[in-house]
């Protein structure tokens, strides 16, 4: 019993590390002129994937396949009027979370004032358990955090190498789906 309690106590910090608290990045947006905040947890992803699946089309199927293994997508992006309006030290909570042993930084690209980092969370069977992108530019900071199982090919698709997913046509499909839904409602 005592051992179980000790193990449970030891497991608590590990469980806490499973998800990142995005509120710790709130300071970054203090002086921003625009911000984008997207939080899609498992339920919302299922809902979105089902809706896109109903819209039909190859791209919709690709998006659905990509999203099916995911637990969450979190995006935080801030735009600033000019240089020096944010403190890059405010990204430290995320960096220290990603510096945990299980995350691997695969890309670090610095060009003048711009810094991009890509972190991957390797999983067994050649799969990924997550992807994180930290892009700190002179007047924009973007954090992308994808939690869940995805294949390296999905990452290639996401980067647009294979032209998939085509967001523009997806938005078109979405509009068609909305029109169809409205038509059905009128018929009802």
């Amino acid at each position, binding site marked *: 019993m005592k051992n179980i309690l000790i193990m449970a106590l030891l497991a608590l910090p590990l469980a806490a590390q499973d998800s990142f608290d995005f509120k710790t990045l709130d300071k970054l947006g203090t002086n921003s002129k625009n911000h984008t905040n997207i939080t*899609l947890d498992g339920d*919302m*992803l299922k809902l979105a*994937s089902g*809706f896109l699946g109903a819209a039909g089309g190859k791209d919709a199927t690709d998006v659905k396949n990509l*999203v099916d293994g995911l637990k969450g997508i979190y995006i935080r992006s801030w735009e600033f009027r000019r240089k020096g309006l944010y403190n890059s030290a405010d990204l430290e909570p995320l960096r220290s979370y990603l510096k945990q042993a299980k995350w691997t930084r695969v890309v670090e690209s610095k060009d003048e004032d711009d810094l991009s980092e890509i972190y991957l969370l390797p999983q067994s069977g050649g799969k990924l358990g997550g992807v994180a992108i930290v*892009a700190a530019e002179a007047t924009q900071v973007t954090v992308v955090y994808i939690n869940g199982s995805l294949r390296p090919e999905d990452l290639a698709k996401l980067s647009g190498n294979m032209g998939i*997913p085509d967001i523009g046509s997806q938005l078109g499909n979405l509009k068609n789906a*909305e029109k169809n839904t409205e038509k059905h409602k009128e018929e009802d």
Partner: protein
Amino acid sequence: MAFEEPVEFEKAVKRALRQELPPPDFAAKVLARAAALEAATRAPQSGKMIVLAVWRKPAVWAIAAGITLAALIPTGISEYRHRREHQAREASRQLLLALDITRLQLQKTKQRLQKVSKQNAL
């Protein structure tokens, strides 16, 4: 003339005080009238009692509840479906925007890497 007036008065008083017997069917008429009045006042009460008795029956309550549910359930389902559709549409928009931002960031990183590798090659 002055002597005749008291006589007339006396006669009038006697007439007024004379015992007059009721007609033989008077009691029957009074009883009948009383019964009719009672029946008239009881009639609405008995109707109310019938209404109360109906509402006290569980079957009537069950039917009323059934009718209310039958009217409410389709409205509730339709409202729920409409709300879920709205949520799904909003979630899809956010998902596509999230994928678009991710793609843009990956492409920017790739371009930066290409630029750096070109500079290194030179």
